[in-house]
Structures are given as C-alpha cells and as structure tokens.
C-alpha cells in the first residue's frame, strides 16, 4: 500500500524507489505539520509577514523630508536665500524657524527635529566684507544614519550656495563665465558609487535582513519539529537503529524545500521585481542558499540533540541567531571587528552566504572565486554526523 502511494506521488522518480524509507519519513512529517498550527505557520504565513514587514519599513529607500529647524539671526536677503535653498533640498524639511537657539536645542533634545541650522548675526555683511562667516549646523548624531544623511544634505546645499556667490563675484572680476567657474572649483570631483548606484538603503539593508529572518525560521522550525516528535515519543516511528540517515533526510526535507522556496522567492523579488541589478549566476546563489539552510539545520539539530530538550535548545538558538544581524559585516565592516566578534561573524553561515549573494548580485564573480565561500558553508555539514550519532545513541 505504502509503496503504491509512493509511486503515485512521484511517478518514475528514482529517489522514491530506492529510498522509500526516506519518503515515508517525509510523508509522516507532512502529516505532523498538518496537525500543528504552529509548525504550519512557521512555514507559511510567518515568513510572508516577516518579509513584508521588513520590506515595508525600508521600501522608501531614500529618506525624504527629515525635519530640521533654522535659527536665523541675520534676517537678511542672503540668509533668506539660503533658507530657500535648504528648503529646496528634498532630503530636508524645515519644520520651524526660530529666533531663539535655546528653543531649537530643546526641539532636538525632544526629538521633534534632527538638526538646527544657525545663521549668525551680520552674516550678509560679513560675506560682503569677505570675512568668510560660518553657518553652523547642530546635528543629532545619536541617530547616526539620520545624522549622516542630514550632514551630507546640508553640506551639499551650503557649498553649492556658497559656490554660487563665489561664481558671481568671480564673474565680476574676471568677466568670463568659463574662468569664473574654474576659479570657483579648480578641481572637480565625481563620486561613483559602485554597485548600489542609487545609494539606496532598501537594497543595502533588506538584502541582508531577509536572510537573517530566514536563518531564525530554519533553526527554530527544525528544533520544534524534532522536539515535537521526541516529546510525543514518536522517535521510534521515524527512526530505527541502523536506519537513521534516510528518515533523517526525509524528516527535514519538507523544511528544506519550503525555506529554500522562500529564499528563491525573496531573491527573485529583490532582483526581479525590484529594479536592482544582478550580474552573476542565480544558480550559484540558490546553491549557496541550499547549503546555508543545511548548515543551519545542522546547527539547530545539534542544539536539540545536546540533551533532547526543546525549550533549552530554543534558548541556545535564540542566543545564536538573534544577534546575527550586527555580526554580518554589512552595517559595520567585519574587518574592523575585534577578534571575538570576527570569530562569531565566521561561525554564522549567513555571513558567508551573504558575501556570496552580494558578490553575485554586484560583481558577477566567477564560480571559482566563490569556491572559498561555498567551502566555508560546507564546514558546517559535519554537524549532521554529530546529530546522526546522538540520535543513534538515544534509540
């Protein structure tokens, strides 16, 4: 009966004929998932909702209208002109103009504005007298990223506005537009952001956050699946001494397939639906994704088989997967981390996977160049041997 169903399910599939023990475990696990709302959720709507949340938070990609205030102590034509220019910068939103700098400072402390621009007394007069007055910007860098965005928006605006004045005064003395322009800036710079051409935070952060979410799901679901079977004393239904490998693969296979599919879905979304360039080979990234999932399953099962206690294994899993994002080397470069953090960076499969994903998306590096990263992921697979023997011992 069993064999018949097997044939019906995957007609002519060699895998099924040779390894019906594996297929049996696979089918049993599907039943388990059907009966557990929690496991079912972790495979279906939970990844969907998590992905949608992460994507929605960053979907705007570039920050616009960051509220700042201006303290204008000069109230001259020039200061009004500068205020107009700041207002025209799409990254900034001048929410208030104060007469009093104390009020502006209070506003920043309370988080209503992120910065205040201070135009001093006699500003216009000092410019005309070539005294080179300073405009001050007080920027809240507690919110580092926001602070950096405001910094660069303000310095671009002010240097452009200053260059305009320079240009006009040079035009007066030189008379020629070309030379006047050149006197303003003898050397020009052109900045080329390679690979993330739009300097978009969405691409930068979400392409790292989604695999981070995926690793949590992979580890947690595999622990819960095995935990459930062992708690319900079903280990002997799945495993028999001397017959562990096939059912082990069969039992984990539904999770491998589903999370691999989620991985493919997010990759296709990021580089297919969204406009980001992808230079390299999708096959290679899919392969690395597959290895990463196996690696994390190995880790999760090792946590579980340490003492076959689900909740304890989950505590370990939390410790291992929860801080992962900080150690990825995306926001803060791995090469600048101290030794321990760099070590932790390396024992997270997602670090190696992500390097491969980025280099395939951006550089289109050859498969040969990717070999070291793939080998790094393979290093996690011996954990499965540990798991095999631990299960063998408790049967």
């Amino acid at each position: 009966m069993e064999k018949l169903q097997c044939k019906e399910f995957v007609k002519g599939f060699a895998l099924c004929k040779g390894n019906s023990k594996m297929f049996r475990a696979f089918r049993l696990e599907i039943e388990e998932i059907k009966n557990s709302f929690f496991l079912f959720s972790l495979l279906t709507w939970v990844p969907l909702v998590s992905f949608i949340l992460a994507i929605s938070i960053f979907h705007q990609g570039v920050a616009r209208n960051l509220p700042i205030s201006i303290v204008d102590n000069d109230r001259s034509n020039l200061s009004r002109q500068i205020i107009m220019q700041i207002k025209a910068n799409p990254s900034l939103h001048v929410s208030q103009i104060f007469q009093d700098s104390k009020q502006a400072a209070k506003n920043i402390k309370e988080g209503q504005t992120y910065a205040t621009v201070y135009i001093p007394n006699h500003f216009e007069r000092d410019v005309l007298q070539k005294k080179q007055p300073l405009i001050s910007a007080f920027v809240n860098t507690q919110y580092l990223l926001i602070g950096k965005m405001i910094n660069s928006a303000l310095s671009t605006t002010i240097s452009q506005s200053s260059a305009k004045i320079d240009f006009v005064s040079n035009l007066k003395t030189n008379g020629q537009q070309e030379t006047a322009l050149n006197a303003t800036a003898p050397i020009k710079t052109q900045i080329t952001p390679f690979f993330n051409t739009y300097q978009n935070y969405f691409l930068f952060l979400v392409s790292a956050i989604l695999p981070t979410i995926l690793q949590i799901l992979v580890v947690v679901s595999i622990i819960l699946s095995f935990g459930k079977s062992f708690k319900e004393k079903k280990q002997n239904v799945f495993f028999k001494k001397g017959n562990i490998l096939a059912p082990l693969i069969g039992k984990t296979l539904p999770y491998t397939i589903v999370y691999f599919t989620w991985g493919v879905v997010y990759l296709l979304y990021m580089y297919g639906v969204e406009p980001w360039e992808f230079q390299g080979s999708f096959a290679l990234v899919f392969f690395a994704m597959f290895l990463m999932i196996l690696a994390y399953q190995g880790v999760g099962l090792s946590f579980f088989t340490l003492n076959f206690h689900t909740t304890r294994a989950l505590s370990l899993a939390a410790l291992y997967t929860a801080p992962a994002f900080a150690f990825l080397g995306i926001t803060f470069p791995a090469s600048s981390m101290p030794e321990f953090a760099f070590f932790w960076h390396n024992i997270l499969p997602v670090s190696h996977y992500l390097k491969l994903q980025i280099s395939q998306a951006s550089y289109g590096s050859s498969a040969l160049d990717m070999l070291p990263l793939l080998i790094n992921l393979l290093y996690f697979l011996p954990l499965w041997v540990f798991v095999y023997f631990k299960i063998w011992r408790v049967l």
Partner: protein
Amino acid sequence: MSFFEVLKFEFKNIFTNIPIVLTIIGGVLLYSFFYPQPYANEIVKTLKISVVDLDKSELSKKLIFSLNATPQLNIVRQDTSPNNAKNALIEGKVRGIVIIPAHFKRDVSLHVSPTIAIGADANYFLIYGSVVEGAIKSILTQSANIKVSNLLVKNTPLSAAKKQYTSYSLQTINLFNPNMSYTHYVVPAVFILILQQTMLVGLGILGGFYNERKEKYDVPIWMKLSSRVLIFGTLFFTHMLFYLGFVFEFFSLPHLASAYDIIKFGTPFLLSTIFLGTFFGGLLKNQESATPIVLLTSIPLIFSAGFIWPKEAIPEWITYLSLFFPSTPAMQGFLKLNQMGAEFNGVLVQYGILWLQVVLYLLLSIYVLKRNEYIHLPQK
C-alpha cells in the same frame, strides 16, 4: 493558599525551570557583553584604496601624497587602468578607487577644471562613506591650495587670498554622539529591547508551563499577578539598573538622565512588559512556543522604532502597530532622556503610551488568567 505561599510557588516554578533561568539571568548577562562586541573597535580601520594616475605629473603626485596622508585612507596599489582598479575592488583587495585623469596638470593650469573620479563599493555603506569622505577632504584641500595660488598670481596678498577661496562655509557640530560612534548609536536602544524580549520569553515559558500542567491552580488572580510583578519586577529592575548603570559605564556610553528619571520612566516600562508577558504566556499552549514568537518580533521591532531608520520614512501602519509593544516608546524615551539629555517633559508622550499599555495589558492578563482557570477545571 496565602499570598506568601503563592509567591513561593511561583518563585519555585520560575527558578527551577532551566530555560527560564537561562533566559532571564544567563541571557541578560551574556547579551550585555555580547551585543556591543562588533563595534568594540569603534572606528572603521584605515581603508585600502587604489589610485589610477593617468597624468603622472608633479601635481598628481602631490595629490596622491596628500591622499595617502589622510587618516582614513591608505594607498596600497597604483593601477595602470581604471579597469584593473575595479577588478582589485571586486576581489576585495581595495575598498575604493581614485582616478586622476590624463592632462590633469595641464587642465588645472589652463583653468579647465579637470574631474577626479572617486569610486567605492556602495554595498557597504560605512566603508563607502569613509572612502568618499576621506578622498573628498583631501582633494578639496588641494583644490583650495590651487585657488589660493591662482589668486596669488593675480597679486592678491596671501592673507586675503587664503580667505577668499570661499564666501562662507558650513561648520557641523555633532550633538550627543560627537564621534559618530556605532556603539552609542545602536547599543543603548538594543539594551532596552533585550530587557523586554528576555522578560517576554521568561513569562511566556512560565505561562506555557502552567497551561501544559493542566492542573487546577485555584488562587485569586491578584495573587498570581502581584507575585509575578514582585519577582520579575525586582529582577528586571536590577537588570535595568545594571544595564543602564554598570554596563553603560563599562562601555563608556553617555548617560545624562538622573537615576530618579530613569526609575520613573522605567516603572511603566517594566510593568507593561510584565503584564504583556503574562497575557502572552496565558495564550500559549506549551513552553516551546514562547522563544520562537518573541525571537521573530525582534527584527521588526528594532528597525521600526525610528532610531535606525527615520520614522518619517516608515509607513504609518507599522509605526502604529509597533506602539503596542513597550519597547518602542521605551527605546524612544530612554534615548531622549539618557542619551540626548531631554527634560522629563520631553518624554511625556512616550510615558503616557507606556501607562496606557500597563492598563491594557493588565486587563488582558486578568482576562486570560480567568479564562485559563476554566480551561483547567476537570471536565465533567
């Protein structure tokens, strides 16, 4: 059972449960050391760059020298073509490229502004920013020098020439985190989230444990609740002071708020988390579900709180949703009080939200504990 007996019973169930202890004591202590680790070196190290000098003039050599003298940058190779340099970037040998065009010197002396190209890998924003910032600073200095010498040629006195190179400029003063430290940016807020998440896991496992037992535990609800408030409140009050006091001191993080303000603001934070945890635990059928659920909320909670990514850029429905968790107003409020030195008046909104949460989750936890009593009654 008297109140004291209930307290003892709860205490025993909490501290004999290894995963709970592992989380609410082990986890809290471990994370305090663990989380700041990646940023411990604080500043991004010197970045290797490649220079492509297509001019090979005196002026271009001068520029290369001044680039190399920039603290952020270290020229490790000179490539003959932009393509070679880009390959070195892809292979990770360098982090950035500076290209000096051919006829650079000639163009400068002919007053045709030549363009220097700076390139860096924008996949890694922090590296990208450092390369661009370092290179631009050094090029601007060179550019200013040229401007001064041009003015000198026109017989302007040196002091006047130096002053004239720009009409006015911007001076930036970084507030609250003057060195742009990553530790100061991330760690204070993450600590608040850790306090909430470990408490929710602990109370979640405890709730799951009672629901698994399916034994009648027939004592007045106020006793159950107040014993949890006492046990978790005392423990996490200590944790909070340990984090915001000792650990902040250890990592030399600024802490501007007075102890009184911290305690005043921390009280509704701890209470709302205890009641949310009790409500959450009451809903769980078993102990295993607690950790995964809490774990999966961490990433959305940290990124939607408005300090990593500006709240102006986050969809409103996510912002409103996140306000149902104590960590969101708590992170915002603690950052303002402790990192930015706001007066207590400046956090009244967050303080109010936290007290609203206390009321909401108190009612919900009373409801769920009452409901569970009936579930546990032996069915006839």
